[in-house]
């Protein structure tokens, strides 16, 4: 995980000291802070979230691997899933970028195939996270964790990031360095006269 992002996150906290405070927005949209001294310490609203409440919906996977479940898979198993559950919308390596597919092309081994996993995605963990939450488009959330590892491995292999036999799991996936990662920079626009 790139330290830059952590620094960036704190940079845009102009004045943040994370002290509890209340924000009021005036009719003109002016943000006014008042301290919440006259507020009760707690409004007593909401109920405690149990660990099972959280586990039920805590789907996200971070670049450092936090959130990756148990399970594993390689590209050989993943290819079989891809060919039954994904290919109709996403095509194959030989499908051209402008083919009338419902979904975007995912395999970018040749130049001119558009921005995708091999040439644009900065983190491999994003692929696991996204496929698990949103794909297949017509049946989101229907793959098992094992299947998500497998199809993730296949897409990484098809994009020449890993080999056919390489096993993807909670340990190996966060270690991959994607080709495009070094190209990403945080927003450098800051208002004022300069156009960026």
């Amino acid at each position: 995980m790139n330290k830059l992002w952590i620094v960036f996150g704190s940079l845009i906290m102009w004045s943040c000291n994370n002290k509890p405070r209340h924000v009021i927005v005036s009719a003109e949209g002016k943000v006014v802070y008042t301290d919440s001294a006259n507020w009760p310490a707690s409004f007593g609203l909401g109920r405690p979230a149990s660990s099972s409440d959280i586990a039920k919906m805590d789907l996200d996977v971070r670049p450092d691997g936090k959130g990756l479940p148990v399970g594993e898979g390689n590209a050989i198993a993943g290819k079989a899933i891809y060919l039954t559950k994904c290919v109709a919308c996403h095509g194959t390596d030989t499908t051209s970028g402008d083919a009338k597919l419902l979904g975007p092309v995912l395999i970018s081994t040749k130049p001119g195939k558009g921005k995708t996993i091999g040439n644009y995605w900065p983190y491999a963990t994003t692929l696991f996270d996204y496929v698990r939450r949103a794909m297949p488009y017509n049946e989101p959330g229907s793959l098992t964790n094992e299947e998500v590892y497998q199809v993730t491995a296949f897409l990484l292999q098809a994009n020449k990031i890993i080999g056919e036999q390489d096993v993807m799991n909670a340990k190996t996936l966060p270690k991959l360095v994607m080709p495009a990662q070094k190209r990403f920079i945080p927003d450098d626009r800051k208002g004022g006269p300069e156009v960026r």
Partner: protein
Amino acid sequence: MAVENKQENKLSKPISRRILLGGAATAAVVLLKSSYGQVVQKAITHAELKIADPTKVLGPPPGALGTRSKFETPVKKASDISSRTPLQDLFGTITPSDLHYERHHAGVPVIDPHSYSLTIHGMVDKPLVFSLADLKRFPSVTRIFFVECSGNYRGGKAEMTPQEICGLTSQSEWTGVMLSTLFREVGVKSKASWFLAEGSDAAVMTRSVPVNKGWEDAMIAYAQNGEAIRPEQGYPARLLLPGWEGNTSVKWLRRIELSDQPFMTREETAKYTEGVKDGKIRQFSFVMDARSIITYPAYPQQLQKGWMEIRGIAWSGRGKIYKVEVSTNGGKTWQDARLQDPVLDKAHTAFRYLWEWKGGEAELLSRAIDETGYIQPTMKQLTDARGQDMGGYHLNPVTSWLVQRDGKVLFKSEK
């Protein structure tokens, strides 16, 4: 029984299903009362639309829901993935809720408000689950601001309306609870620097947001323009980050997780990032820079000689609009437009400029200047700054309308 005068408005032929659904031949959609007292929608053609002298006919009684005049048919323009606000048909700065633009990644979910909940967890002292009723009991705020998709520029041909060029921006009066109020309730840890916002649509949409935006002016809204938020805008509750690209204002919000780093979701890596110079890719470009567009006159209007008011809207995600300048000669000279008070922070601001068209060719431009001193750039300035590979996000170029001698108004497309 039809509420309209029976004699005058008798429909000459049975209404086909296509007309009922508002086919091409539709002149208006009217509300009629059926014999069971139900209000039903009927579309009628121009020939069928005979209007009685309104002083000689009793009008319909008060109803349960208001309707648009049958002579007014503003509509959103929908594609598979988005639906655009008809900016050229609107007045003032509030977008009627049913004309608010839509952009979602896997359709509009149906969410039962009684089973809805928002969970806040991660780097907090007390992870909590709030029901919709809980959210509504917290101290509330109401604020007017725009929401704009960062992929809000289309060009390519002369026959384009403001709606087609940049209809992915809309403005509402939003009511809800400040996120800072909820942060206080759960006790956000001082080491938390980002939070993940997650929706409960079929995309289970996620974005990482710097925690300070949460302390600053983020809100969880449950109401829009005086009523519950519309399903297309995130019913029953959504995140709103004033001035920031629309995708970060996650709709149908179900979960917020506090963290000490961003999550690098697909929508902040593969999408909503833009190529800049030297092969770099700019990420987390949250703020929407200042922009304006003349919405009158604009394609497809046909101008008549004489005086008119050039009208439009200007907005900036960085604060208030300071000034809007209008040119009627392609940018050779610029004049200040009049801004409608009150000028609000991060809000569509109406501008007007009085102009006499004498029948010659003209090129109408507007440019917004915000309180940071940012001047809305031309497309050339944007390309010069970002390079040829800049893609389609965060494009806010000056829009130019060419007025021809015959009174036609055409878009001067630059990309």
